[in-house]
């Protein structure tokens, strides 16, 4: 082996820094926050389970990407940002919308293609929008929404505001040009943005090692002279901690951050592929499911003795109806009728 090759091999083999697992002690110590985090994650989980059910029944069509396994990222992130901050995300967007407070009924109605859906039935699963919550979509082209998030941050700075724009995307998006172009400008212009890589290790069916020359995606931040870190994203407290730091940097110093959230999706890429068996093994899936973010938080809470055995059963029972999830069962939503008398195609353009 040549010197250069040896050096490169050493560099490549160099162990990655362990993801931070320090968690945030304030949240760990506050029962109300813990309960809210658990509730947010459970709503997402139950909702996605119902999506799978409705999809299987043919009630939901098209592409449908479920968020199961990754809920700590949305719950943790939304819990540390303000109501006037902005969110831009990719097509795996149900969980983030719910965690942001978009009504489950409006999201489910959208999936059913109904006028009372949050995008009036014209967007579908990949295009969840809610202007009242600064939830700016739901975008279907991998990585193409990252410049949009930089643009929102640009507008914040243009108006001298102190909001932050949070952008979610998968680890496969770091290889597309839009990621590079957006992060370069975000750093060059010091924009208040938080770029969150949800690294579930698979871009559709392609494992990260087959797609990305350097699997340490956090290191991309260095190319843009930007703060970067990696987080064990099955630990909702670690998510809160990292996003909290990034949000503070954005809000106070108008600087962007790149955060790699190390997670795993427990379902297929979309409803069209199996959870395991084609591009990943059942053993791998089962191993990762041991670190279910909901179970980890539940265990943390029950270790404190805050939840009795009965309470836990109630929280995790399937399907569980709560005030928030009521009205989202497939049959229930189907029974609602659209009363619209609008023309078939509208809002293509704002009229003169």
């Amino acid at each position, binding site marked *: 082996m040549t010197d250069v090759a040896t050096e490169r091999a050493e560099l490549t083999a160099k162990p990655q820094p362990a993801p931070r697992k320090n968690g945030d002690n304030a949240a760990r110590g506050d029962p109300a926050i813990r309960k809210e985090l658990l509730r947010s994650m459970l709503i997402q989980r139950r909702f996605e389970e119902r999506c799978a059910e409705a999809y299987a029944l043919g009630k939901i069509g098209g592409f449908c990407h479920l968020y199961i396994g990754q809920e700590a990222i949305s719950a943790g992130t939304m819990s540390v940002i303000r109501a006037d901050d*902005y969110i*831009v995300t990719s097509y795996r967007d149900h969980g983030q919308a719910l965690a942001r407070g978009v009504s489950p009924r409006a999201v489910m109605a959208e999936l059913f293609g109904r006028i009372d*859906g*949050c*995008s*009036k*039935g*014209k*967007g579908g699963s990949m*295009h969840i*929008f*809610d*202007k009242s919550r600064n939830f*700016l*979509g*739901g*975008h*279907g*082209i991998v990585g*193409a*929404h*990252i*410049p*949009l*998030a*930089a*643009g*929102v*941050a*640009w*507008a*914040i700075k*243009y108006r001298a505001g102190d909001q932050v*724009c949070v952008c979610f995307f998968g680890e496969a998006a770091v290889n597309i*040009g*839009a990621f590079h*172009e*957006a992060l*370069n*400008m975000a750093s*060059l212009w010091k924009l208040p943005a938080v770029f969150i890589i949800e690294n579930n290790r698979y871009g559709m069916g392609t494992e990260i090692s087959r797609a990305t020359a350097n699997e340490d995606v956090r290191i991309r931040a260095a190319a843009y002279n930007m703060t970067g870190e990696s987080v064990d994203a099955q630990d909702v407290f670690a998510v809160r901690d990292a996003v909290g730091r990034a949000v503070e940097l954005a809000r106070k110093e108008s600087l962007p951050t790149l955060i790699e959230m190390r997670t795993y999706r427990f379902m297929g890429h979309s409803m069209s592929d199996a959870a395991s068996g084609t591009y990943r093994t059942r053993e791998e899936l089962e191993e990762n499911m041991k670190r279910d973010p909901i179970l980890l938080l539940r265990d943390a809470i029950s270790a404190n003795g805050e939840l009795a055995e009965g309470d836990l059963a109630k929280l995790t029972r399937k399907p569980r109806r709560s005030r928030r999830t009521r009205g989202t069962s497939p049959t229930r939503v189907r029974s609602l009728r659209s009363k619209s008398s609008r023309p078939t195609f*509208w*809002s*293509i*353009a*704002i009229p*003169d």
Partner: protein
Amino acid sequence: MAVLTYRDALTQALREELVRDERVFLMGEEVAQYNGAYKVSKGLLDEFGPKRIVDTPITELGFAGIGVGSAMVGLRPIIEFMTWNFALLALDQVVNAAAKMLYMSGGQFPMPMVFRGPNGSALQLSAQHSQAWESWLAHIPGLKVCTPGTPADAKGLLKSAIRDDNPVVFLEGEMLYNTKGEVPEGEYTVPIGQAELKREGDACTMVTHGKMVLVALQAADALAKEGIAIDVVDLRTVRPMDVDAIYTSVRKTNRAVVLEEGWEICGVGGQVVDFIQRECFDDLDSPVLRVHQADAPMPYAKNLEKAAKPDAAKAIAAVKQVMYVD
């Protein structure tokens, strides 16, 4: 009325709208310190500062997306592409983001923005720098496409485009920037979607837009000397298209030629011919002919370039053909 170049008319429109609305900003490559690759933004950095006149890295997709994102939260960006040839890299943002945002969000997110820059060929810039994209862009629901051919239309349409709440594609021309014409001062807008009869006659209708307006006028002048007076219908905006102006003229002249800068297949002219055959079938005395670029990438060599481009001689020949005169 002041006589201005097409370039200065655009600069005037930009300046007036930047003054009028604090939410308007101009972003693109070389727009600020360099004063614009074609000097359309000359002097604007000095007047409005770097917050509103913004130089970008060479990153068309990225800054087009920054424009879209900022429009989602209420700013009114003007995104300049140094030429539309480079905008191909950004078409995902134009087509998949800007054009569809209002629709796929169920009407929640309007896109009050302009994508502008020179379109089509200049002189000997060869294959990659000499392309007219209006048929691509006009294909997309959600976009408006402006193609001004004169300084007055350049000013009036750009002001309308900046004030429009929808994404507007604004196609200028390198070869038009130095052309001169009378331009109304101050508040002057041209409605998007309204054609103009630039010459009046009864022998034939010539439908055209953008850079070809000047070619059509040259052809009309030459034909007039031979006693053939034609209507020149300048579409001014390709989408929405003022079909009534086309029908009115064709019903009068009973003959039509469609002149455009781009290629033949699936071009704007094909759409115009379709509108005419649907609505004016019984009014026609001859088939509608089209004049366009040769079906080849633009060559570099002068003689080949001339052969490839539509020009007045080709337009005149087409008019004579539909009139069955030699």
